[in-house]
C-alpha cells in the first residue's frame, strides 16, 4: 500500500476505561478517496476509536496517524483538514445557526461563506433560527454544514443520518460522493446497513473492543454462508449454509426437490453473524 495515499493509519491502538472495556489492539488503514464504513453493536468501541483519532481522549498504547501526521503531536494541523460530525450534534443553545457556522469557519481561519451558503441551500437549513429551537434532524444538518464547509481532506461522520428525513439522507450521500470524487476520504460510523451498502468501499466490524474484520462490502457477503431456500418433500425451508455445497447436494439425494434457490446472504445477515459469533 502506498503510504502517501494512507489517510487513516491506526496501529495497535488500545484504550482502557479502568473496569470498563474500551478498545484493544486495533489496527486499520484507510486509503485516500475511499468511503470507509465502521460498524459494530452498541458499546463495541466505535466512538472510542473516533474520539481517540481526533484527540478527544488519550489512548494507552499504539499509534494513530491521520493525513500522515501523528495525532498526539500534530493535532491542530490535522483538525484543520478534518470535518467531524458527532452523533449528538449539540451546539450552544442561545446562538443562531448562522453564528455557529460562522464561528466554526472563523476558528479555522477559512472563508467558507460560499460553500456554507451552498450547503445550507441544499440541506434546507434555516440559518436565522436559534439552536435551541431546532429538532435533532435540523441540528444534524447544521453539523453537516460545519463539517463540510471548509472542504476538508478527511470526513469523519458518527451516525450521520439518524434524525434526517429520506430526502436529506439522499442529499447527504450525494454530497459525500461529490467531495470524495474530488479527492476527499470519508469514514462513516453507522448502524444503518443500507447506507454501508450504498456508499462504502470497505467496512470494518468492531465487537467488544476488538476488530473482527476489514473487508469490501462484496467480500463481506460473499465470504460467509449462502442462503438456501428450497421446497423439499413438499416442505418449504430456508436457512444459512456455511459448509461445502457438494455436501449439500449429497444430502439432497433421494429427496423430492421442487424448488432450490442459492443466494448470497444480505449484508444484514452477514453483519448479524459477526455480531453473534
Amino acid at each position: 500500500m502506498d503510504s502517501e495515499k494512507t489517510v487513516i493509519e491506526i496501529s495497535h491502538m488500545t484504550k482502557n476505561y479502568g473496569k470498563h472495556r474500551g478498545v484493544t489492539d486495533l489496527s486499520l488503514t484507510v486509503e485516500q478517496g475511499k468511503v470507509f464504513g465502521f460498524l459494530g453493536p452498541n458499546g463495541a468501541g466505535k466512538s472510542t476509536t473516533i474520539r481517540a483519532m481526533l484527540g478527544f481522549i488519550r489512548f494507552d498504547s499504539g499509534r494513530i496517524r491521520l493525513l500522515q501526521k501523528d495525532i498526539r503531536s500534530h493535532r491542530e494541523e490535522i483538525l484543520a483538514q478534518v470535518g467531524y460530525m458527532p452523533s449528538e450534534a449539540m451546539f450552544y443553545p442561545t446562538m443562531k445557526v448562522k453564528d455557529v457556522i460562522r464561528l466554526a469557519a472563523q476558528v479555522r481561519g477559512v472563508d467558507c461563506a460560499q460553500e456554507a451558503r451552498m450547503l445550507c441551500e441544499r440541506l434546507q437549513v434555516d440559518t436565522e433560527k436559534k439552536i435551541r429551537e431546532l429538532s435533532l434532524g435540523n441540528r444534524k444538518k447544521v453539523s453537516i454544514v460545519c463539517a463540510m464547509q471548509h472542504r476538508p481532506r478527511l470526513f469523519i461522520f458518527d451516525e450521520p443520518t439518524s434524525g434526517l428525513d429520506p430526502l436529506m439522507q439522499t442529499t447527504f450521500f450525494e454530497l459525500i460522493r461529490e467531495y470524495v470524487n474530488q479527492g476527499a476520504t470519508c469514514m462513516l460510523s453507522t448502524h444503518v446497513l443500507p447506507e454501508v451498502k450504498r456508499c462504502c468501499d470497505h467496512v470494518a466490524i468492531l465487537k467488544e473492543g476488538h476488530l473482527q474484520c476489514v473487508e469490501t462490502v462484496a467480500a463481506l457477503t460473499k465470504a460467509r454462508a449462502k442462503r438456501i431456500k428450497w421446497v423439499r418433500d413438499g416442505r418449504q425451508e430456508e436457512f444459512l449454509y456455511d459448509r461445502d455445497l457438494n455436501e449439500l447436494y449429497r444430502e439432497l439425494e433421494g429427496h423430492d426437490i421442487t424448488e432450490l434457490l442459492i443466494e448470497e446472504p444480505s449484508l444484514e445477515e452477514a453483519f448479524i453473524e459477526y455480531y453473534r459469533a
Partner: protein
Amino acid sequence: MRYIYKHEMKQYWKTLLLWSVCVGGMGMACILLYSSMREEMAGMAESFAAMGAFSAAFGMDQLSIATLKGFYATEVGTIHELGGAMFAAVVSMNILSKEEDGHTSEFLFSLPIARGKVVWIKWCVVCTNLLLFHLLCGGLYGLGFVLLGEGIPGKELLLYHAMQLLLGLELAGICFAVSAFSRQNRLGLGLGMVLLFYAYDLVSRVDPKLEKFSVISPFAYANASRILGTGEIAAKGVLLGAGVLVLALGTAYVKYTGKDQM
C-alpha cells in the same frame, strides 16, 4: 483565538450586566442613603463601635459608621465584597465544565485549536468579566458620591477595590480549577465555597484563637474597614492569595489539557 474569546464574552454579557447593575445599584443606593442617615448614624456610632464581637466582625470598631468612609466600609463594602465574590464564582465555576455538561465539547474540540489555548482564552474571559464588573460597580459608586456631593476618598478606595479584584480573581481561580475537573454544573459548590470563606473571615475576626489563621480566607486581605481605615494592605494575605491563584490556574491547565473529553 479571538473568535472563541468573543464567543465566550457574548455568552456572559447578560450575567455581567445583571450582576453589575444589581450589586453596583445597591451600593449606589446605600451611598445615596448616607445623607439622610448621617445624623442618626452619628448618634448610634458609639453604640455600634461598642458591640464587641459584632463590631469587630463588621469592622465598626476600626471606622466610625457615622463617617462616609466608615459607612461605605460597613454598608457598601459588605454588599460589594459578597456580591463580587459570588459573581466571581458565577463566571468561573462552569466555564470549563459547561462544554461537557452541554455536550458542546465535540464541536469545540473538533476545531483546530489546542486545548491549552482554550483554557487561557476562557481564563481571559473570566478576568475580563471580573474587571468589567468592578469598573461598572465602581462607576456606579462614583456616581453615588457625585450625586451625594461628597468627595471620593480616592487613594484608599482605589486600594480597596484593587484588593477586591484580587479577591475575585483568587476565588475565580479556585472555581476555575474545580471546573477543570468537573463534567457537570457545579455552581452550587462555588457559591457554597464563597459563603464558607466569608463566614470564616467573620468568625476569624471575632475569635482571637483564629486571628493568626485569618489569612486562610481571601476576604481577610480585602477587608474594607482595615484598608479604608489604615490605607494599608495585608501583604502576607495578598502574597498567599496570589500564590493560591497561580497554583489554581496551573492545576486547571494541567488537568484540562490532560483529561478525556467525553
